């Protein structure tokens, strides 16, 4: 498996506060990496830096060997970013939104239409394709944004709380869609507060606190690190974040 994302020594401060403090990790193609942490741990800031929405103070970001800080445009071609709050245009229809997003990534118009139709049908929004997004429920908006993130077939998909606001059926659908992308070779980074989702879906998990990566690995490796063999990810997670940062990171 090739390395899809390589982050090393990534740092970002706001005022005097270190929001991200020298984070280093890698994600391979065909791998689902769950980035977990308490609120304010630095997960979203890390993802925003990788997506090119924030300038990092220090560190290196390589997306499929493209230096994202040197050549952000080339890196962005490979990435899709799904924020926790759906970025939609209330006054556009779902179809227009997808057409627009496809245009931003330079997807061929005919191809974009095919993909838009496929995604809208898959996500159950086909009948609403001519409705303006302002009429959508939170779950429908989330699905429309997900369709937008997938329309240019990204090689690296970054999903910040993708299941927020979705009902059980939609949540299952999205999880299947993510898994399918991973099986097709895409790399996925996912943040979530629903630890069961990370436990069931993720190939590897990184736990972040106070801007530092405490630990990462497969679930059994995390259990070993926390000295909590056989326990759930929730127990492991709570046990790790309860420790002072320096001790947990060892």
């Amino acid at each position, binding site marked *: 498996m090739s390395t899809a994302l390589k982050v090393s020594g990534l740092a970002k401060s*706001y005022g005097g*506060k270190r929001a991200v403090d020298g984070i280093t990790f890698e994600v391979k193609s065909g791998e689902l990496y769950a980035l977990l942490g308490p609120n304010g741990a630095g997960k979203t800031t890390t993802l925003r830096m990788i997506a090119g929405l*924030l300038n990092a103070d220090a560190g290196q970001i390589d997306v499929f060997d493209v230096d994202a800080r040197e050549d952000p*445009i080339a890196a962005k071609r490979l990435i899709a970013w799904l*924020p926790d709050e759906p970025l939609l245009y209330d006054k556009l229809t779902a*179809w227009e939104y997808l057409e627009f997003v496809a*245009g*931003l*990534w*330079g997807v061929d118009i005919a191809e974009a239409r095919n993909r838009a139709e496929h995604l809208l049908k898959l996500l159950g929004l086909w009948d609403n394709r001519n409705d303006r997004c302002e009429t959508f429920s939170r779950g429908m908006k989330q699905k429309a944004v997900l369709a937008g993130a997938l329309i240019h077939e990204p090689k690296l998909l970054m999903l910040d709380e993708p299941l927020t606001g979705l009902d059980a059926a939609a949540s299952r659908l999205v999880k299947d869609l993510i898994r399918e992308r991973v099986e097709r070779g895409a790399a996925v980074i996912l943040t979530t507060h629903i630890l069961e989702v990370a436990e069931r879906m993720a190939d590897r998990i990184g736990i972040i606190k106070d801007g530092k990566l405490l630990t990462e690995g497969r679930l059994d490796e995390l259990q070993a690190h926390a000295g909590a063999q056989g326990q759930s990810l929730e127990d492991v997670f709570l046990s790790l974040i309860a420790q002072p940062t320096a001790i947990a990171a060892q």
Partner: protein
Amino acid sequence: MKAKKTKSRSLGGKPGSIRWLMGHELRLFWRRGRISARSGVIVVVLLLGLWSLASYFIFMRIGPLIPPPPFDDGPAHGLVLTAISIMVAFMGSVMMSGAILGSVEAIYTRNDLDLLLSTPISAWRILAVRSAAIAIGAMPLYAGLLGPPLLWMALFSSPLWLSAIVFIVTLAFIATGLALLIVTALFRLIGPKRTRILAQIFSAVAGAAVFLTFQYFNVTSRNAGNMTPEETAALIQTWNIDPNIWWLFPARAFTGDILSILFWIVATALIFPLGVFVFSRGFVSDAAAALAMGQKKRVADARVAAVRGGVMSSIIRKELRLLTRDPLLLSQIGLQLLYFLPIGFVLLRPDGDFLLTPAAFAPALTLLAGALAGSLIWVTVSAEDAPDLIASAPVSMRASDRAKLFSAIAPVLALMALPIIALAVRDPRVAAWTTGGVVVNALSAALIGVWRRTQGSRKDFVRRRQSGSLMSSLGKAFVGLGITATTAAGAYGYPWLALIPAIIAVAMLGALYRPTPQFAAAS
């Protein structure tokens, strides 16, 4: 079942190109209103057609009488160009005011810029298009108002008037370029937090400055409107403005002086791209700083933790806190106060020879109280951030509305107390009428806001100064005018005459009444 057809219009241009991005911006701009695109086209075409027709008949007669440009000969032409300069300065200041708000909003709210900037399109191109959209957004009002008359003037007076249309377009771009430079400079100099507040104030002042200056001279100048043609001619000679003086060059460009308009176009071609370049270079870091602003931990206010009083005081406290903690909202509401400043200029007349008696303050303060209360009630009732929370609380909607009504009216009455006390010193009778007018108008505006509530957000108010539905706005305006007329008649000593507008206002208020809806599980 017959499958629905997919509806979509092409944006034009290659995806990702400037033309394509501009098509996207304009589509969003067009759909910003509440009416459908088709109705919008009909309304715009109808209004423009009517205005074109009306202005045709006006300029068909007066066009041949208007001296054709260029105006480059003698003090009379100097005066004409000065008058045009004042108009140009007014347009420019209003355009710049809007552009400052637009660029500050781009940094702080970002909205779709996160999506756009996460794409492989260069930030420069995205922000250039967004900036151009801000500039284009500033044009329709002036292009619509001045376009038809200028076309007829070109037909009936001189084709050189056509350069005024080019001038208005380029003025919007220059104003936007300057606005981008100002916002970037403010960010560098005073940081994100203060920039947001200062830019709001700067924008308000820039928008009102020329209007207020003009009003100051208008109100304080002696013998205005009473001069004979000879006196006017003598005044022109006294001022002796050289039409070729350097600061009249924008007015010369407006009136078709070829060299000046060329120079003006070159200035636009330099200032707008410079503004976009400087703004886009710092955008990502500025946006990051603005983001960090919201993440700073605040020291907990000990008062917040203490739960005091009943439901009523809790809601009032919450509303007043939200109002005082939102400087953007306050500056927008405060902007309304600026436009009443000309009344203050009367008091500043150096010779103390008041054209207006104290009674003139009664309708002005009454109108202002209604406008302020109308804005505040919309913010507290319609722009409630958590309506579900209030609805799920064990409190009736009537009680909640009463608290919100108080929150909207109390600050207005506190603000009005000082001028009313000043009036009472000079004329207690006028002060009594004014007090009545202020209280009744504030209360009626607030009640209309409660009865005709529409769900919205505080962002809407800050962005578009939106404060309610059309029905609510019209209702507030007409009832406010009725109460203001009542107050004016009473203050000027015609109490019986005051009855007529009072009866009309009460009747309109009654027509606007709508019973308070109840929460699903109100106690």
